[in-house]
């Protein structure tokens, strides 16, 4: 009995090695994908280690308010004379941490509910999908604004939790329709015919074939969460407890008058560029992942 187990183990290891080989090949073929991965990894590095490079609190240079971009201050300074680039880097942890929490909750809840509804069908399916449709109909941003009067979204974790709990609807719908189409395929029928347990079928047969789809949704959820929370802080309905990109945008536009005087423009542009760059990185990375997980798309 031991021999086959070892063989299976070796098989798995080779598969894994081949997978990483494939990833490398896919990335190497198109420089844009490599750029996307580098950008995403760069932002992750910035979010985790960025604040370590700067003193806390950030130094102020009161003689240098709204300074123009220079070598010393690449994006100028803000209304207190603090370096704008430093603000973007230290502000990224809040933004990225809550976005990752949101994405994990969105995907776990969405996948779970979508799989359950699609696989069970029947009454549970109807009830769950009704709820999902309702969630999808209630406009997210206005609801968040109304909720902001009773919740303060104090920490990045709270923010991620709320956004995640509000955001699973789309993923659940998509996963359900994937499940519905997959469960009629031959390999699932065969697994059921063999009398394998539902947990086995879902965990070992369904989930792996949906992995690319789920991974992509995860990255898209990260972008959505970044937009949503930066937007909420930008609108100025939440208390400014921590430094983050949305707070910077708000202060630049409504405090610094970036819509009428050019002095605050670099202060506005720095977080905007950070958002644009992160979006670009994620879009390019999604493109690469599509090909990694979908061997049929590979041009060998």
């Amino acid at each position, binding site marked *: 009995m031991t021999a086959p187990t070892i063989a299976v183990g070796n098989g798995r290891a080779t598969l894994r090695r081949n997978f990483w080989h494939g990833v490398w090949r896919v990335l190497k073929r198109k420089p844009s994908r490599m750029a996307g991965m580098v950008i995403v990894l760069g932002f992750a590095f910035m979010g985790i280690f960025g604040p370590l490079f700067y003193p806390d609190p950030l130094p102020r240079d009161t003689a240098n308010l709204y300074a123009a971009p220079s070598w010393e201050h690449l994006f100028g300074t803000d209304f207190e004379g603090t370096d704008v680039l430093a603000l973007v880097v230290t502000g990224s942890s809040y933004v990225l941490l809550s976005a990752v929490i949101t994405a994990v909750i969105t995907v776990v809840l969405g996948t779970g509910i979508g799989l359950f509804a699609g696989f069970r069908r029947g009454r549970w399916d109807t009830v769950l999908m009704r709820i999902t449709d*309702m969630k999808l*109909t*209630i*406009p*997210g*941003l*206005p*609801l968040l*604004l*109304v*909720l*902001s*009067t*009773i919740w303060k979204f104090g920490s990045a974790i709270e923010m991620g939790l709320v956004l995640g709990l509000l955001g699973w609807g789309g993923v659940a719908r998509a996963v359900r329709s994937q499940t519905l189409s997959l469960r009629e395929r031959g390999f699932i029928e065969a697994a059921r015919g063999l009398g394998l347990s539902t947990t086995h079928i879902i965990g070992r047969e369904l989930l792996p074939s949906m992995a690319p789809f789920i991974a992509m949704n995860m990255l898209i959820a990260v*972008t959505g969460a970044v*937009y949503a929370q930066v*937007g909420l802080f*930008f*609108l*100025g*309905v939440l208390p400014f407890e921590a430094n983050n990109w949305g707070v910077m*945008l708000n202060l630049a*536009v409504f405090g610094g008058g*970036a*819509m*009428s*005087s*050019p002095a605050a*423009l670099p202060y*506005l*542009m720095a977080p*905007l560029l950070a*958002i*644009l760059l992160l*979006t*670009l990185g994620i*879009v390019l990375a999604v493109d690469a992942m599509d090909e990694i997980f979908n061997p049929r798309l590979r041009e060998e």
Partner: protein
Amino acid sequence: MTAFARRLAGHLARGLVMILIVTTVSFFVIRSVPGDPMAARYEKMVEQGMSPEAAQRAVEVLFGFAPTGSLWQQYVDYMSGLARLDLGQSLTVPGVGVSTVLFSAAKWTILPVLAGTLLSFLIGIVMGVYAAIKRSGKLGDILAISGSLLHGVPQYVLALLLGAVFTTLWPILPQGGTADIMFEPGFNAGYIGSLVEHATLPVLTYALAGYGGWILAMKSSVVTVLGDDFILAAELRGLKRGFIFRYVARNAILPLFTILALSLGMLFGGAIFIERIFNYPGLGLMLIDSITNRDYALMGGAFLLITAAIIVANIAADLFYTVIDPRVRSGEGVA
């Protein structure tokens, strides 16, 4: 036709349930606000020398439902007020009903959203057809990339960039309000010109934000139709390239009409950013102002109206699709 009526009835019932849920949510949010705004208001009025009874009545009028009685009683009162379109009184605009304030703000959201969406729809589908026909060429690539980028960027980033360019760096457009106060509102050239000038940036943002989605959707729809048999038949009959717009676009556009109505609804939610950035007094700005002023009656009303707009757009999308696509209709007759 009975199938159509049944469909409509189902939609309306579901829409009503949604509105009921949304009203309930806003009722309980207003009730659970820390520091109870009604009690605070009451205290303030008594301090200002009002008798407790008069202050009590004033608070009831202000908030649109009696703060006394059981929670259930208050809820019933609030709901019956809603049925009469009575959402209470606004705190920030004293003496004026919330519904009046909301309806006067609604036109500043509806018109720009409609104009921007239709503009992006028209440009997007034309460009989408080109992107599909020239999909292996450079032009197609450029169009598709411009679509993906604009589709991926959030509305407020677009609005901020446009604002930075056209009101700060190169100040040729006004940055707030609906028209200059020097013009008298009415049907005169100066006022209308000023209206258009002030609406340009919001409309342009709605249009740019929508354009990316349209070009991508139309491109994939056209590519699908191009693979259909009737196109092959038409090509075999020797039809020229010019037939593309007449034959292909007409068929490819059908599924996009559903998205059109849906995106109109979605834009009501997104209007919040654009109205805040360009200081444009529509429903979104009203919602923000009501939150910063702690005007809870107005807040509940604005939230309800935005949601209602989205529900109506969803129903319209579904019904409209039934009307314009004969295949959906015939499928229904069988079922």
